[in-house]
């Protein structure tokens, strides 16, 4: 049977213990095209892809290259010519880059199982040359930055010489420069007739690279359209089923006295001589390329890894943060950049995740008062519009955006004066992103000071009152909201 | 060996386990004996592990001791130890646990008794007290260990001779008192009719007594142990423990050292087999043993 489609998925259904994650979904991808799969957090995009890749079983039929896919596991999918970049990074930390890339298909001497280490490295080098990636293949994976890990995963997916590459949020951890690089790779793959399924929450990317767009909503198939027939607003309309503004415009807030001021803060090898201040009602954005030391900077401020020199003043008083509990006591909150690694308590419930940093306020003669917990958590769920069936749901069951909101709620429960947000909307869908932005704006209006690190230019530009630009650990300059644009920020960074 | 430099004999002693009350008296006697004989004693603990004991014997051989006393963890594994010592022409004395005939041929002396005898003596006395009939429950030590195997076999050999006696229950309490209590508690709950509890050692017998006492059944049931430890003697005195079998640790320890020193000096032995027989303890003769322990304890100080 001839068909113009490389991949045809039909009537795909998947239940997670009674809850339908996918209901009769279809997806048809043509050869040599980039096909965007869009939808809010939890719409079922990753689930659909995991079914295609053989990681989940599920109802329905899948035809690939005209024949029915048997779906016995990732191995089979890879053999048939499907490879996948997963939403979650999957490094094997103590193995080398080369070993990670060729895991499961190491070049070996015949059938002996004896790994040809030389060829392993050469093959990796060749791959990196083609893709123009500069990473040492013999480095241990754990020594790579997150961005480089992401690049390695991209390289791995490409190296399978697959006919179809699934990319599930491949750009959530890399900066514009690397995104451009990825797009170059995608274009050249496309020329070779490779099809790509592209999942992202970043609209501009989708319109830049994709030919067709399929939209899912709450596990339902909504439709497929050529990208050129859609614009951002109509796409969002399809995704959320109602109209929302993609970019939330920050409301003006009254900027008052200084909350935190940092003078000549340094930590050896990470950042040096950083000075700035944040005021009540102000959002200070910290911009910079990946690996510029921003996370380290705020970790020092929060007492996770104290600075080696410099001073900090809170409400005008000199303070030293020796540990996060010092910071918390001083009414500072921190939402970290990596939900899984440093944020969520995965085996615990939504409720427990929310209360963990401010338990004292719930104590009643030493007991955690269940009623207060319930009441305050419910408030947060409502306020942040967190989608969870109940408070006892395990956080790992929530979609990324909702997880992020839970973590935000954790700190809001402490009613902090200063809220530090590191990549607050990484991997969060448009709707949730707008909500988080709205929330930040409201917090500022409430008189909170907000320190925000973000690698997303639109976010930095849209949300910050002032922008601090950091490059390779040094403070390069500061821009006011009015004067800042993307070009300007890069200029400052590289000056 | 460095012992030779100051003219002192060095005796190596490969002991099965330090954590055992009865053996500890034997060790003390050996230490005291060595002092008396002006010999240095190197005593090592195999922690109930045959292969560890073999290692230790090899180490003693390497150190060039003048004689080795072995109290085997398990007599089935004593042959390579004897071989190792013999290769270096070091005299070997086996104490307390009697190895098989082919190994006995190679060793220079054996000090102790026949292990199985304790089981037979114990059971014979129980049989006598029960008039040759009744239900017996056997509480065994740590499974697979020498004393457990031999003592249990001794018990059963005797029971076989009495057609009206039978083993109704057999279970392990690992030589431990706590496990003895637990096992006995469970047996009591089973409602089985038992006339005697025969344990591989006194500790378990004491455990059984404790459980029986709290169930109010102590008076109807005979309890027998082996070892005759001071703790056990108190229970014999009070009538709770009906039978135990005494094996003289001090006699064995002293004799082992004396024999080893003799051999080290190259002297001839009158008899290769130095018998220290088991002795039966019941309420009638218990005071004698209480005195004996007192003496041992005083000596120790």
């Amino acid at each position, binding site marked *: 049977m001839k068909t113009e489609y490389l991949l045809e998925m039909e009537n795909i259904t998947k239940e997670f*213990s*009674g*809850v339908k994650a996918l209901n009769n979904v279809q997806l048809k991808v043509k050869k040599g095209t980039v096909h965007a799969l869009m939808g809010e957090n939890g719409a079922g995009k990753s689930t659909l892809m995991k079914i295609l890749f053989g990681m989940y079983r599920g109802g329905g039929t899948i035809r690939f290259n005209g024949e029915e896919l048997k779906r016995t596991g990732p191995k089979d999918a890879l053999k048939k010519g499907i490879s996948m970049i997963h939403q979650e990074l999957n490094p094997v930390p103590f193995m080398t880059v080369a070993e990670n890339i060729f895991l499961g298909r190491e070049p070996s001497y015949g059938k002996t199982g004896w790994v040809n280490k030389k060829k392993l490295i050469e093959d990796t080098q060749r791959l990196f040359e083609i893709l123009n990636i500069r990473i040492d293949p013999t480095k241990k994976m754990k020594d790579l930055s997150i961005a480089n890990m992401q690049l390695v995963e991209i390289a791995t997916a490409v190296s399978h010489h697959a006919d179809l590459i699934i990319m599930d949020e491949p750009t959530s951890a890399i900066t514009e420069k690397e995104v451009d690089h990825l797009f170059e790779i995608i274009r050249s793959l496309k020329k070779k007739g490779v099809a790509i399924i592209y999942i992202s929450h970043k609209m501009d990317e989708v319109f830049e690279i994709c030919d067709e767009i399929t939209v899912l909503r709450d596990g339902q198939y909504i439709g497929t359209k050529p990208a050129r027939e859609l614009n951002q607003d109509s796409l969002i309309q399809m995704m959320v089923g109602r109209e929302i503004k993609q970019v939330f415009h920050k409301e003006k807030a009254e900027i008052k006295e200084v909350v935190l001021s940092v003078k000549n803060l340094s930590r050896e090898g990470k950042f040096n001589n950083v000075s700035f201040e944040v005021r009540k009602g102000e959002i200070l954005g910290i911009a910079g390329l990946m690996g510029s030391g921003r996370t380290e900077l705020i970790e020092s401020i929060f007492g*996770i890894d104290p600075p080696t020199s410099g001073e900090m003043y809170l409400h005008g008083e000199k303070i030293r943060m020796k*540990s*996060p*509990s010092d*910071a918390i006591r001083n009414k500072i909150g*921190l939402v*970290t950049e990596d939900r899984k*690694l*440093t*944020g969520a*308590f*995965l*085996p*615990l419930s939504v409720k*427990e995740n929310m*209360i*963990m*940093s401010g*338990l004292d306020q719930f*104590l009643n003669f*030493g*007991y*955690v008062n*269940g009623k207060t917990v319930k009441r305050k958590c419910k408030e947060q769920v409502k306020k942040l519009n967190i989608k969870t*069936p*109940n408070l*006892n*749901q*395990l956080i790992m*069951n929530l979609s990324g955006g909702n997880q992020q909101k839970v973590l935000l709620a*954790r700190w809001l429960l402490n009613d902090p004066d200063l809220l530090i947000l590191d990549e607050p909307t990484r991997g969060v869908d448009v709707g949730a992103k707008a909500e988080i932005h709205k929330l930040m704006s409201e917090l500022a209006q409430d008189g909170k000071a907000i320190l925000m690190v973000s690698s997303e230019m639109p976010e930095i530009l849209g949300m910050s009152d002032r922008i601090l630009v950091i490059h390779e650990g040094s403070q390069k300059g500061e821009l006011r909201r009015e004067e800042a644009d993307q070009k300007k920020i890069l200029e400052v960074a590289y000056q | 060996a460095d012992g030779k430099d100051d003219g002192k004999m060095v005796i190596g002693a490969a002991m099965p386990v*330090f*954590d*055992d*009350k009865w053996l*500890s008296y034997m060790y003390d006697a050996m230490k005291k004996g060595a002092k008396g004989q002006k010999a240095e004693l190197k005593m090592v603990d195999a922690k109930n592990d045959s292969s560890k004991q073999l290692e230790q014997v090899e180490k003693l051989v390497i150190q060039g001791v003048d004689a080795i006393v072995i109290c085997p963890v398990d007599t089935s594994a004593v042959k390579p130890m004897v071989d190792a010592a013999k290769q270096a022409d070091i005299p070997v004395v086996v104490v307390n646990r009697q190895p098989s005939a082919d190994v006995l041929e190679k060793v220079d002396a054996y000090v102790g008794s026949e292990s199985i005898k304790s089981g037979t003596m114990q059971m014979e006395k129980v049989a006598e007290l029960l008039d040759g009939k009744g239900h017996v429950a056997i509480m065994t030590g740590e*499974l697979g260990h020498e004393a457990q195997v031999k003592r249990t076999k001794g018990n059963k050999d005797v029971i076989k001779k009495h057609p009206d006696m039978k083993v109704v229950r*057999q*279970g*392990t309490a*690992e*030589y*431990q*008192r*706590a496990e003895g209590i637990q*096992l006995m*508690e*469970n*047996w009591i*709950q*089973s*409602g*089985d009719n038992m006339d005697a509890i025969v344990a591989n050692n006194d*500790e378990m017998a004491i*455990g059984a007594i*404790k459980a029986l006492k709290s169930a109010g059944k102590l008076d109807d049931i005979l309890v027998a142990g082996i070892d005759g430890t001071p*703790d056990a003697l108190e229970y014999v005195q009070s009538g709770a423990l009906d039978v135990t079998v005494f094996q003289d640790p001090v006699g064995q320890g002293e004799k082992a050292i004396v024999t080893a020193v003799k051999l080290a000096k190259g002297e001839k032995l009158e008899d290769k087999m130095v018998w220290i027989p088991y002795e039966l303890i019941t309420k009638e003769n218990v005071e004698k043993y209480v005195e004996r322990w007192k003496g041992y304890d005083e000596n120790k100080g």
Partner: protein
Amino acid sequence: MKTEETIAKKQTISHDRDRTGWKEKIPELFSRYGIFLIFLALVALMSVLTPHFFNVYNLINVVKQVSFIGIVAMGVTFVIITKGIDLSSGSLIALVSVIAASFAHPGDYPLFVPLLLGVGVGAFAGLINGTVSAKGMIPPFIATLGMMTAARGLALLYSDGRPIGNLSDSFLFLGSGDLFGIPFPIIVFLFVGLLMHLLLSNTKFGKHTYAIGGNEQAARICGINVDRHLILVYTLAGFLTGISALMLTARISAGQPSMGVMYELDAIAAAVIGGTSLTGGIGTIPGTMIGALIIGVLNNGLDLMNVSSYWQQILKGAIIVTAVLIDSRKNKKA
């Protein structure tokens, strides 16, 4: 290794409690109380297999026997929830036992001296376990393995390898006394169980214990003093082991350096059978108590049925694996 998967499977269950109908509630019920149901099944099985099993005396008997390991297992549950392990419990029992016994001779010291010393020694050893593994950055497996060896050695050294008997009656009450016909160890077991359950599920300390096991780094960022908390958890485990050791010593009316061999494994097994996950963040005290009871029922039932010691071991191994297997299978399906 399996946890994420297992969690993923468990998660989907407790889900949407509000909107599920009765049909969905049955597997949920089974999943929540799975191990309890397995326990009931085992009890039913034993009751059928041996007529002596199901009567109040024997059941009291089983619970009493379980009390000792059960209390140890509660401390171990805290430890395992933090992603740790404690291999030292068995040896610690011996150490506490000989030290306490040596101060419990009639007329020597008032009762509180051996009691305080006993729990004190336990807690102190736990403190060392915790400090070495928290501050020293060495795996708790090794830290407590070292303690296991060292504490046994200390117990032997202290007692010169001999049991220490002749204990005062007031001390002995701990192990063999009863209140209103209920053996004292059972009372302690239930009381400590209740206390520990409240501590684990309703206090800051308990929440922090889960947090550390769930994500240590996140816990640090939430302002939890992880090192100090871990030290406290191991100290608590040592303390509970001390209580158990005191009661055991009283039960056998002697301090013995050879006591408690392999108890650590039974305690860990009780916790894990009861649903505590070795990968951290999951576990409950009632679960552990059921886990201990399962082991106790097995021991008791097999003894009652007069199964030979050899077969007892084989069956015990097989049944424990099967119980955990059923428990995890059921989660998978539900």
